[in-house]
């Protein structure tokens, strides 16, 4: 009998070890796969921006996008990951109630010489989580990259991209996308799919930069009226936008905390980054409904394929903050409303003399804001955190989040681009802009045997 019990205990122990190994491999692979999926976002932004540029600037736009991605990686290793764990409770570096924040915790898990910041046989999560966050960071830089095409200096842009991707957005994430984040614990801020901490931050940062950068030559006439400056390949732009949307599925996977691991919120069901329960299945309903509503809304208003695909993106962004909570028809309506408003916001910006070449502010800044407010309007009263007697989601909490995200995005973008402007490091010279940036500084040709460079009316 005793021998049977010992044998059974050994079998159970072996079985438990096997289950743990399988679950560990599953969770590690889950986040690992978010990374190639999110690389699709960057393949998409690359095609999108090159297509939206005139042929004389196509490769320069591509270089800018590739380099931003590459340079964010080391800076996010040096400092970005540490910021995320150090600052959730504000700027005090104190530890939050969940015990996963503050100076000591950040120093332990995220300093670049920490034992967890490289191959470690006891740690199967840090690298894949860090990698997913790097891709979020690179997404913010790509959002900025689109709005500033055809006239920004490469090195000036690189500085802005590093600041946005490795400092600004991750501070926003610490505050509003972390279970110890002060916006969450004090105001019940809810932003499941990063409508605020990624899209709104990047959109408002871009607006600050674009104001200082100024419009492309030929964009505005002497009377202030605007000219359309079409890119050289609308098909490339549209395919790029669809690739971004494909990559969004990886982005949203990265917003989910899987169950069953030591760092998970539970053993049975997926959770948001706040520890609140959700399902990938439920998120799927809402993502597709928001996507669809965005396309239909933009088509109804513009009939333009560029805005239709931007509407697809905008529909998902509009729903992103509450993708874990919406009733699917609600997601369609929120995406539809956002996409209907989006072209008017782009037009409003243009009428102020601001040349946002791809509508980055309208799609990401404005719709990120709409997404946050939509949760405050239609998804109030949910417990905002893991645990008992926690604060609930509310309109006021979302409104505070909107104000913080808007200011945290816009102010650094405006101030740093202004400093670059006054030191002559922001904008290319007029002669280079007119000739085209590819001919000036790129040792390759986008179309050596075809396509005549286009010019805008005022050129």
């Amino acid at each position: 009998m005793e021998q049977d019990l010992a044998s059974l205990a050994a079998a159970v122990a072996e079985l438990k070890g096997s289950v743990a190994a399988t679950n560990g491999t599953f969770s590690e692979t889950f986040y690992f796969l978010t990374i190639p999926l999110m690389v699709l976002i960057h393949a998409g932004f690359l095609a999108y921006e090159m297509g939206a540029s005139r042929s004389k600037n196509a490769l320069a736009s591509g270089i800018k996008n590739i380099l931003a991605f590459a340079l964010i990686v080391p800076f996010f290793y040096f400092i970005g990951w540490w910021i995320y764990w150090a600052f959730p409770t504000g700027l005090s570096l104190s530890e939050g109630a969940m015990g996963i924040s503050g100076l000591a915790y950040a120093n332990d898990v995220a300093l670049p010489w920490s034992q967890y910041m490289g191959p470690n046989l006891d740690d199967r999560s840090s690298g894949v989580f860090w990698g997913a966050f790097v891709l979020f960071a690179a997404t913010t830089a790509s959002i900025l990259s689109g709005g500033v095409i055809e006239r920004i200096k490469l090195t000036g842009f690189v500085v802005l991209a590093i600041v946005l991707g490795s400092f600004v957005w991750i501070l926003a994430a610490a505050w509003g996308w972390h279970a110890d984040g002060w916006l969450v614990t004090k105001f019940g801020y809810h932003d499941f799919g990063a409508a605020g901490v990624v899209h709104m931050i990047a959109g408002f940062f871009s607006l600050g930069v674009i104001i200082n950068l100024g419009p492309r030559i030929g964009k505005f006439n002497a009377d202030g009226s605007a000219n359309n400056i079409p890119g050289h390949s609308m098909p490339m732009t549209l395919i790029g936008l669809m690739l971004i949307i494909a990559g969004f599925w990886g982005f949203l996977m990265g917003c989910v905390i899987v169950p069953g691991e030591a760092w998970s919120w539970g053993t049975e069901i997926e959770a948001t980054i706040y520890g609140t329960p959700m399902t990938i299945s439920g998120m799927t309903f809402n993502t597709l409904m928001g996507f669809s509503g965005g396309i239909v809304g933009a088509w109804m208003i513009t009939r333009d394929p560029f805005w239709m695909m931007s509407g697809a993106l905008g529909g998902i962004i509009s729903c992103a903050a509450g993708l874990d909570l919406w009733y699917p028809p609600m997601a369609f309506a929120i995406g539809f409303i956002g996409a209907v408003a989006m072209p008017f916001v782009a037009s409003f910006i243009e009428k102020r003399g601001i040349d946002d070449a791809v509508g980055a502010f309208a799609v990401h800044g404005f719709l990120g804001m709409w997404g946050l407010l939509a949760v405050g309007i239609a998804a109030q009263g949910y417990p905002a955190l893991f645990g008992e007697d926690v604060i609930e989601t509310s309109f006021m909490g979302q409104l505070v989040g909107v104000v913080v995200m808007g200011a945290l995005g816009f102010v650094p973008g405006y101030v740093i681009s202004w400093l670059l402007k006054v030191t002559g490091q922001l904008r290319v010279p007029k002669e280079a802009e007119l000739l085209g940036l590819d001919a000036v500084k790129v040792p390759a040709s986008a179309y050596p045997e075809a396509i005549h460079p286009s010019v805008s009316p005022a050129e």
Partner: protein
Amino acid sequence: MEAPFEATSWDGITGAIYAGYGSVEGLWLALVLAMVVVAVVLGWRHEKHAYNAVKSKD
């Protein structure tokens, strides 16, 4: 710069296993930072020369 443990087998090895763990991280971090700074400065100079060349043609 070597393995952070002395062993002739992987049996019983746990924790951080990356080369140089606990000893030379600072050196490599400084090297990476220097490489990035040098690359960006050279990129800045390339841009400057390219723009100056266009201006001088006009």
